[in-house]
């Protein structure tokens, strides 16, 4: 009995879609568009989070010293740094070594430095942090402690860059959520109206179903299946589109991005995230249909 009822529902869904093909394509396109935007933002957030994580893992602190310090004072600072449990390794970089390093990095343009009469670079320490302390809070905590040591003029670990990055990241999240919410509501509206049009186009059939003893639930099931199909198909097609865009970007642009920023790879959604997008589609379809059917008097027995 259940098999026969299921068969009837599915054939009803197919005939419904076939006879309202244009409405269905419009709904599917809108949902797909929504999910393309949503998934793109998701992908950006995931990759930027990963990038931030990678960056923090590779962070080292540069501590610049006052030029007037003698070797004894430098040794004292060296010892003061080593007592901190967060620090794994401390390396002294003299003014001379710093200039040489700069010279090496300016490959082909090293002539620029020939015009310098004196070495403007300060003595410094390069500090590496233990893996378990590679997070923003621990790093900032350490910086605050180091900053109190006398003879240190400046400390650098890319904090300004990180602040700007965090700001951008926050902006991206808020923008993504705002656009996502707006598109989600639009899609709900579109699905809800599509289902309403389907109901109107089958008004006579619904009336006859009621006459011959169909339950309200049985009349509604094909519409729910249709709404869910819209949501799942829309999200699946959007994932395919975003994947294709991702592949093109990964091949042509992102390799350069990776080289510049030092990340290992440009990530796509993992299985959990992939399933979540599909589930969001399902939820969208279900909610849209529910809203639509709730307001229709056609289903009153």
């Amino acid at each position: 009995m259940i098999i026969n009822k299921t068969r009837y529902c599915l054939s009803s869904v197919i005939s419904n879609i076939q006879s309202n093909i244009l409405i269905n394509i419009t709904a599917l396109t809108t949902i797909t568009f929504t999910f393309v935007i949503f998934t793109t933002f998701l992908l950006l957030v995931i990759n930027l989070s990963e990038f931030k994580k990678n960056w923090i893992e590779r962070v080292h602190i540069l501590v610049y010293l006052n030029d007037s310090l003698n070797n004894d004072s430098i040794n004292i600072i060296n010892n003061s740094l080593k007592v901190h449990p967060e620090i794994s390794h401390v390396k002294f970089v003299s003014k001379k070594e710093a200039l040489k390093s700069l010279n090496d990095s300016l490959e082909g343009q090293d002539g620029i430095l020939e015009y310098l009469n004196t070495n403007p670079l300060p003595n410094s320490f390069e500090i590496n942090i233990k893996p378990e302390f590679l997070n923003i809070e621990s790093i900032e905590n350490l910086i605050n402690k180091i900053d109190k040591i006398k003879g240190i003029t400046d400390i650098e670990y890319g904090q300004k860059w990180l602040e700007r990055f965090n700001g951008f990241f926050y902006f991206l999240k808020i923008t993504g959520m705002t656009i996502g919410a707006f598109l989600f509501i639009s899609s709900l509206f579109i699905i809800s109206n599509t289902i309403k049009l389907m109901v109107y186009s089958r008004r006579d059939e619904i009336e006859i179903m009621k006459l011959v003893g169909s339950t309200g639930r049985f009349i509604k099931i094909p519409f729910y299946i249709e709404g869910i199909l819209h949501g799942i198909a829309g999200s699946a097609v959007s994932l395919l589109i975003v994947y294709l865009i991702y592949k093109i970007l990964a091949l042509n642009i992102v390799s350069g991005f990776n080289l510049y920023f030092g990340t290992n790879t440009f990530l796509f959604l993992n299985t959990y995230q992939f399933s979540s997008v599909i589930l969001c589609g399902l939820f969208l379809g279900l909610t849209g249909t529910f809203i639509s059917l709730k307001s229709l008097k056609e289903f009153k027995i």
Partner: protein
Amino acid sequence: MIKLHRITKYYENKIPAINDINLSIRKGEFVFITGPSGAGKSTLIKLIFSSEQPNTGEIVVNNENITRMSSKEIPYFRRKVGVVFQDFKIIQNRSVYDNVAFPLDIIGTRRKLVKKKVWQVLKWVGLLQKKDSLPSQLSGGEQQRVAIARAIINNPILLLADEPTGNLDPKLSFEIMKLFKAINARGTTVVIATHDKNTALNFSENIITLERGKLAG
């Protein structure tokens, strides 16, 4: 079979379509409800079928008080009752076979059994050769026979018809009435609402006349 006790039904205009009616129809009867347009015939059929609820009074069909049924119970009650309308109410984009099979499909009847029953009933109403036709390819009389076939496919205990010959010429009307008579002969209680008292007189002595929502005789 059917008992109406002090039934009153009025719509938004507050003028009663049915006004304090008491009525009893026995099992196996062939009954006509006649009266002019607006007398309340269609409302009475709708009330017996639980498509409308009365404002006051109680309706008992086959020992079930349908006025006290929940909306979840009503579909199950309707499966025991067949209904035929003036405008046929058949699905235009489905074949004759699919239309007749419809009440069985929605309750999940096995395909083999559906086929057997549909063939039997189509043969009985004389439409077996047109089983694959669409309603638009049929005459009015044939479309009404499809509606009747659909109404009796579940072997209902009661068959209600609201102006079933309203859209048909006298010859076809006669054929359709003969069909109802044959259904009644198989044991089904038949109640037909019609404005045509002459047709009613030709087929039954059980005639209920309504006038402005009240029994006239």
